[in-house]
């Protein structure tokens, strides 16, 4: 009998238990494999799982520990990630029929950095086809199902990551976010995630969707795990020349620093676009943050809908261009929803896309000068509505597609255009209440501040494991 329960332990606790030899990496990995099988049965969470390889890696980690060679902060901890990252010698599924032509020559940089910290990669997890969809629907792999109620969506596109973490199969997982794909599944599955400042985390070896917007980031139940993971994967990478050269703070070391007096901006007008029940849950969350010492101030986003349109002008042609070869030659290999959305980008003029790219600095500067004038953090809902059912959003490539997707990503997509960091935290849940969550959006490179607020919040609203 282990002295620690892997299904409820955080990554930090599990790593400490492995180092202290209260549990072996092999035992933790066996528990993770069993958990992933449960998560797959309930949620359709897993794309690939090589048990023999995972256990061999775990035994190697135990052997290294026995020799005193284990120094990484995640040594021997089994993790699993969205199946969109290069792994040496393997071909990621991208959640699609269309895949890379040949096995990867290197690990994606975020995976390589976690591996250097001692973490094991034991499975590839469900994602929306090509990470291009915010709901967890996937017409190739099958739709992901919410761990709290399988009739409801998981959010997407990092659906399997959020499901697996929510169910305690793994303590943390990587995902990606182009228009909300870390934040929406975290909110829907009652876990937390951090989309860092654009350029904070290398995308080298991650499947590109829209490079002007793509961000790789962690999902975990405990915000301290999010802090640890972000600290490990962030930082300049010569393989992704666009990554910031700014030093990466020790997010975890400062996470307990007080948040007393910290101003959180709330745009009441923008929040009123959400369903009334979502507004009420956000209000409860804000009260929890006030209890933790923060204070709220009114703020205003001047042109939220305009920013959303600019995001689409930037994103849709990038996605269309990336898939140009395949949409011309293998259109029938796409699911109906992704194929329909891919088509839009071909009809946006180059001049209009460039306008969106050229305007980005000006728009961000205005938001920082006006919306963030008196605060470093703004709170927004993540979903505008209570969690929809899978059936409600099963719109395929039909006429409701763009409107339905736009409503799901109403509060998340513009944040990607602005390049700002955003931490999603789950709302407190009443008995039987479905999960949902809110975002704390910060100024550029304020990840540490967001994580401190998240930690303060979790002292009032502790993380849960889906039963």
């Amino acid at each position, binding site marked *: 009998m282990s002295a620690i329960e892997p299904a409820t332990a955080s990554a930090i606790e599990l790593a400490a238990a492995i180092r202290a030899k209260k549990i072996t990496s092999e035992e933790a990995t066996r528990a993770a494999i069993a958990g992933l099988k449960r998560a797959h049965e309930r949620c359709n969470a897993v794309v690939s799982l090589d048990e023999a390889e995972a256990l061999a890696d775990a035994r190697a980690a135990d052997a290294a520990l026995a020799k005193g060679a284990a120094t990484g902060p995640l040594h021997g901890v089994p993790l699993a990630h969205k199946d969109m990252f290069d792994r040496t010698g393997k071909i990621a599924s991208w959640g699609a029929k269309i895949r890379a032509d040949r096995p990867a020559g290197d690990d994606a940089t975020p995976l390589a950095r976690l591996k250097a910290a001692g973490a094991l990669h034991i499975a590839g997890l469900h994602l929306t086809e090509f990470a291009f969809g915010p709901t967890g629907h996937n017409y190739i792999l099958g739709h992901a199902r919410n761990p709290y109620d399988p009739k409801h969506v998981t959010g997407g596109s990092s659906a399997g990551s959020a499901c697996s973490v929510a169910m305690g199969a793994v303590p943390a997982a990587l995902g990606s976010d182009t228009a909300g794909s870390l934040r929406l599944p975290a909110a829907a599955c009652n876990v937390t995630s951090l989309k860092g*400042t*654009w*350029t904070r985390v290398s995308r080298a070896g991650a499947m590109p969707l829209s490079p002007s917007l793509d961000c790789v980031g962690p999902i975990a139940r405990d915000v301290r795990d999010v802090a640890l993971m972000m600290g490990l994967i962030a930082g300049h990478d010569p393989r992704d020349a*666009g990554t*910031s050269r*700014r030093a990466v703070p020790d997010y975890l070391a400062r996470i307990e*620093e007080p948040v007393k007096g910290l101003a959180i901006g709330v745009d009441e007008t923008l929040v009123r676009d959400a369903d009334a029940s979502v507004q009420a849950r956000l209000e409860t969350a804000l009260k929890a943050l006030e209890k933790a010492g923060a204070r709220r101030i009114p703020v205003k986003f001047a042109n939220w809908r*305009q920013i959303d*349109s*600019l995001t*689409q*002008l930037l994103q849709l042609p990038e996605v*269309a261009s990336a898939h*140009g070869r395949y*949409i*011309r*030659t293998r*259109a029938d290999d796409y699911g109906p929803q992704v194929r*329909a959305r891919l*088509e*839009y980008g*071909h*009809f*946006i*003029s180059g*001049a*209009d896309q*460039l*306008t*969106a*790219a*050229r*305007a*980005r*600095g*000006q728009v*961000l*500067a205005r938001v*920082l000068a006006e919306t963030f004038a008196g605060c*470093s953090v703004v709170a927004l809902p993540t979903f505008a509505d209570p969690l929809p059912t899978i059936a409600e959003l099963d719109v395929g*490539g039909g*006429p409701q597609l*763009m409107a339905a997707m736009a409503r799901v990503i109403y509060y998340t997509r513009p944040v990607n255009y602005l*390049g700002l960091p955003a931490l999603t935290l789950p709302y407190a849940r009443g008995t039987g209440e479905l999960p949902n969550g809110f975002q704390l959006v910060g*100024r*550029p*490179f*304020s990840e*540490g*501040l967001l994580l401190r607020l998240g930690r303060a919040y979790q002292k009032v609203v502790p993380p849960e494991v889906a039963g």
Partner: protein
Amino acid sequence: MPEPAPAQPVSLTGHVVPEERLALIRQHVAALAETALAVSDTLPLGADSSDMIRVIEAEEERT
């Protein structure tokens, strides 16, 4: 002025967009083009896509 929608989806050679989707696409893209036009009127000649990086990197560390 925004460019008129092309008569043929030339950039999709080999993939024909069904007529019912084409109408939706043109309507949506026209609305986006209006935004682009309005925003372009506010941009200085020297506005550049790299401005975004400059604004992000100019951010001072705050606690």
